[in-house]
């Protein structure tokens, strides 16, 4: 059939009609998609151009505000706010520039930046962000407030410590670390979720790098969350808080295996020989990894006798522990003649002999 016009289209075969409809549909779809891509590109370019212009305006205004002595601050602030800060995007750009200025300047200028921040109504804007429903707005507000060290009512931030989103919990911690001068870790009291390893490292780095007031970590050694206790035990060692040694010894009886492991290692590092008695008493009931930790603690701070008392608590099937024991026993070579007893091909049977031998030694035979 030769196509001349659409006249008589109603008599076209059905398949041809379908073909035409689908062709038109996909043509329209393609055109719409191309139009959308072009529109988005133009929009992006326009926003980019607007951002560049607005950033320039902000920098110029901020420079006048900070360095121009003839600048009428109060009047100009009101005028700038009224004329330029209209949309949420304008506020976002202004906050970003405030953060950049604050990051690069210190001294009098840093104080003036805070004045600028309040004067432009950015504090109020961030408060509204904190109360917003979108988590990313809340996180952004927390980030800006903590970077600038600006305090808001604690009740507004504390709920974020319990947020389901890790980003919000993280930012809330950062906020408390940066804004609490006297006890930057007081927020640990309110934590009802475990601290991730990354968060622990983050808090420790903040304490060191921001030169924050180091609290007495003994305060959280009975915390509900075992990760908080583990972190605090590590900090007791890092900051040499010897006054908390009795609490570290108590932690050897903690219900959580990880806490006990950290306590064993920390007491070893701090060379607390008073802890050996409890460690050896707990040894038979410990997990294999904690048993190993105790063996190595004895290597560092214990005696041959301490080591020998553990022999009966190492089962015939615990070959790895037996090897660790032999390795450590070589340190006490004069008192524990292990080399004569070790037969690598027959370690399990050897161990039984060795247990019997050690028992007799301990009994003074």
């Amino acid at each position: 059939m030769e196509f001349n016009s659409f006249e008589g289209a109603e008599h076209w075969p059905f398949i041809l009609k379908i073909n035409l409809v689908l062709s038109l549909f996909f043509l329209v779809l393609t055109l719409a998609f191309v139009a959308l891509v072009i529109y988005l590109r133009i929009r992006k370019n326009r926003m980019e151009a607007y951002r560049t212009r607005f950033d320039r305006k902000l920098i110029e205004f901020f420079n006048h505000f900070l360095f121009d002595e003839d600048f009428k601050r109060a009047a100009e602030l009101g005028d700038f706010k009224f004329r330029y800060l209209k949309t949420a995007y304008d506020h976002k750009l202004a906050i970003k520039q405030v953060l950049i200025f604050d990051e690069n300047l210190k001294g009098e200028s840093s104080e003036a930046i805070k004045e600028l921040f309040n004067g432009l109504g950015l504090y109020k804007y961030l408060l509204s962000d904190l109360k917003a429903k979108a988590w990313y707005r809340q996180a952004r507000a927390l980030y800006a407030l903590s970077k600038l060290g600006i305090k808001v009512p604690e009740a507004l931030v504390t709920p974020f410590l319990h947020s389901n989103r890790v980003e919000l919990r993280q930012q809330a911690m950062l906020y408390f670390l940066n804004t609490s001068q006297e006890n930057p870790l007081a927020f640990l009291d309110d934590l009802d979720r475990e601290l991730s390893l990354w968060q622990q490292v983050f808090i420790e780095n903040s304490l060191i790098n921001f030169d924050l007031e180091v609290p007495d970590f003994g305060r959280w050694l009975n915390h509900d969350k075992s990760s908080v206790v583990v972190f605090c035990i590590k900090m007791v060692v890092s900051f040499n808080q010897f006054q908390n040694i009795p609490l570290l010894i108590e932690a050897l009886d903690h219900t959580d295996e990880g806490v006990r492991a950290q306590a064993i290692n920390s007491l070893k590092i701090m060379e607390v020989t008073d802890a050996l008695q409890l460690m050896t008493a707990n040894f038979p009931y410990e997990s294999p990894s904690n048993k190993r930790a105790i063996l190595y603690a004895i290597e560092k701070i214990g005696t041959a006798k301490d080591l020998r008392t553990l022999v009966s608590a190492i089962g015939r099937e615990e070959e790895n522990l037996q090897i660790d024991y032999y390795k450590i026993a070589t340190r006490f070579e004069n008192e524990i003649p292990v080399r004569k007893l070790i037969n690598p091909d027959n370690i399990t049977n050897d161990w039984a002999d060795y247990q019997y031998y050690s028992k007799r030694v301990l009994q003074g035979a």
Partner: protein
Amino acid sequence: MVIEDNPMVVKSLEFKLSKDGYDVVVAEDGRTAMKLLSESAFDLILTDLMLPFVSGNEIIEFIKSECPDVPIIVLSTSTQEDIITEAFTMGVDDFITKPFSPNELSLRVKRSLAKV
């Protein structure tokens, strides 16, 4: 001359130093800085160490070979002792760390120029 790639810092330095009565020329990367240094003479150079295309150390070497008497002030985020020591060994006159106090920087510029 200010050699710095952060637009905010550039504008602030330009504004502050102009307010103090200096003529400020800006180079936002190492290559531009070298070109300008070859073409014109400057009384003082304020430079960052982290720059596009050419590193701060190369810039300092270049300045020392082209115009050895011009005082150099480094403005950097680095607080590492070895970097600061290396800069002084290369012949810089002063080292200011970011964040910086604009008033303090102004005084240091004045003092460095007074020595010339």
